[in-house]
């Protein structure tokens, strides 16, 4: 169980605002970790920094012992970090199968697909996320829950070792959340390291054995969800000062 992702003293400044401030943490191979914090805490920025969509002002990110700071997003994906977005992104005018095929056509995805062919691997991924009966339709007419599944499918196409899920539950009904939970659990059982965010604690509580809490770009604490949820500073961040009596 080696360390798969190591983030050290990560800082990101947007003209005057420090979105991420001297943030450090580690994720071990095969772990299932959550990142929590109130809205605007900087969770998405951390994901953007890890996946290369934004460049850190300072700090270092290491994946599998390799320095990936300042690397281009597609290169990071091809090393084995795939991500999903908080706001759903899909190739609107292409069929679901083609949506997945794009990931299968990346350098890393191709290696996985070599054995069975691009079409077959894309269909098998669609089946894994439960969308195989909708393979021939474009995502514009899909309900939101299916789009979340599609996003995970697109990430899976690149054969990731580490999966970054940005708010996979946002905007979903309870039943849809259940479906996604099952899916994520299954992926984790298959050996993918999962790192996900969520601003509502309840969803993450049942799912992850370890959470990292942050507020205003700063690291607060980490540990089992129950412990973190009772942390004074975490409660303060969510509910404001003097709230421990309420909780």
């Amino acid at each position, binding site marked *: 169980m080696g360390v798969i992702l190591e983030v050290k003293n990560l800082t990101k400044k947007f003209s005057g605002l420090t979105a991420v401030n001297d943030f450090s943490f580690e994720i071990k191979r095969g772990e299932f970790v959550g990142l929590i914090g109130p809205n605007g805490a900087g969770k998405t920025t951390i994901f953007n920094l890890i996946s290369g969509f934004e460049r850190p002002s300072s700090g270092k990110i290491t994946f599998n012992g390799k320095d990936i700071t300042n690397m281009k997003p597609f290169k990071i994906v091809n090393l084995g970090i795939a991500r999903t977005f908080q706001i759903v992104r899909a190739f609107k005018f292409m069929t679901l199968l083609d949506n997945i095929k794009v990931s299968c056509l990346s350098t890393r995805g191709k290696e996985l697909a070599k054995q069975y062919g691009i079409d077959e691997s894309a269909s098998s991924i669609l089946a894994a996320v439960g969308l195989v009966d909708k393979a021939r339709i474009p995502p514009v007419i899909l309900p939101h829950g299916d789009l979340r599944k599609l996003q995970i499918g697109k990430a899976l196409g*690149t054969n990731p070792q580490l999966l970054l899920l940005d708010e996979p539950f946002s905007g979903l009904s309870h039943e849809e959340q259940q479906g996604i939970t099952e899916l994520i659990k299954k992926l984790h059982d298959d050996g993918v390291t999962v790192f996900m965010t969520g601003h509502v604690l309840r969803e993450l509580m049942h799912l992850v054995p370890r959470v990292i809490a942050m507020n205003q770009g700063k690291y607060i604490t980490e540990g089992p969800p129950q412990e973190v949820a009772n942390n004074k500073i975490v409660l303060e961040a969510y509910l404001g000062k003097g709230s421990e009596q309420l909780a």
Partner: protein
Amino acid sequence: MTKQIERISNEIKEFPKYLKDWAKTFKGGLTVLCLIGLFLMPLVTTSPYFLGIFILAMIYSIYAASWDFLAGFVGKVSFGQAIFFGLSGYITAASLKFIHYPWWGALIFGSLFAALVGLIIGLITLRLKGPYLALGTMVIAIILQKLFALYELKPILWGDEGISGIPPLSTNAIEVYYVILIFMIISFIVMIKLTKINIGIIFRSIRDDETGSDASGINTVKYKVIAFMISSIFAGIAGGLFAMFNRAVNPLIFQALYSFYPIVMAALGGIATISGAALGAFIFVFLGEIVRDLADPLFIFSIVLILIIRFASEGILKSALERLKEFWDILIGR
């Protein structure tokens, strides 16, 4: 490797059957009919004037399809397609007249040069998006027009008279007609095929969501430049044929009008269809000939374009095909 060869040989073996099945479908049958019509055209008329109209329409078809490929399938709207059209025209003309290449050699040389320019322009306009890309390509075309017309550069760029008296492709109009028809068919097959194979899926993903494509592990920079090169090769083929057909080329070939022509034609036929570009080009050229004496063709086309944007924003190919299919279904009693 052997697997690939086996697959390709299999595909070749299957091809006649595939062609037969395709010709039986509605779309395929219609295409075959149109092609037969084009092939038999010289039997109907041998007048160089009428054949000339068809030749011009076919050259513009390739040109419009090259724009449609870039705009409709990669999402890169260029307002400077005349860059590739014109430069290839110049190179083809110069190598025909001064180096005495055979016409096909000059054409290959011109198109490859256009591809090289496509590579360079793809690289410099890489970070431009939407209207800025359109502006950037338009400005490059204007710079080229002024540069080629510059008096001081006349010894190397032939000044504003350009190159004239280019040896013709052939003195026989029918031969020219068939050569250009074959070029058109090959160009369309290649472009349509490119949009359907794996690389076409990558292109379309860049069109729909560039960031998402990046997140799927696609080297978007590489594929955008490849797309620019493919588009410029075909614009270059059209430009070279155009210069040979006119037997002259001058700096006006870079003017904004020649960049707008393919856009108008593609929009007429339907963007992101490739074959719509051919329909648009034929309508454009025919209508242009008809209204020539009445008014400025561009004036008429502006009005037609406004009508199309208002009433058939997907172009006329799609709606025409649908109507025709309904009619066809009624005829055969479905």
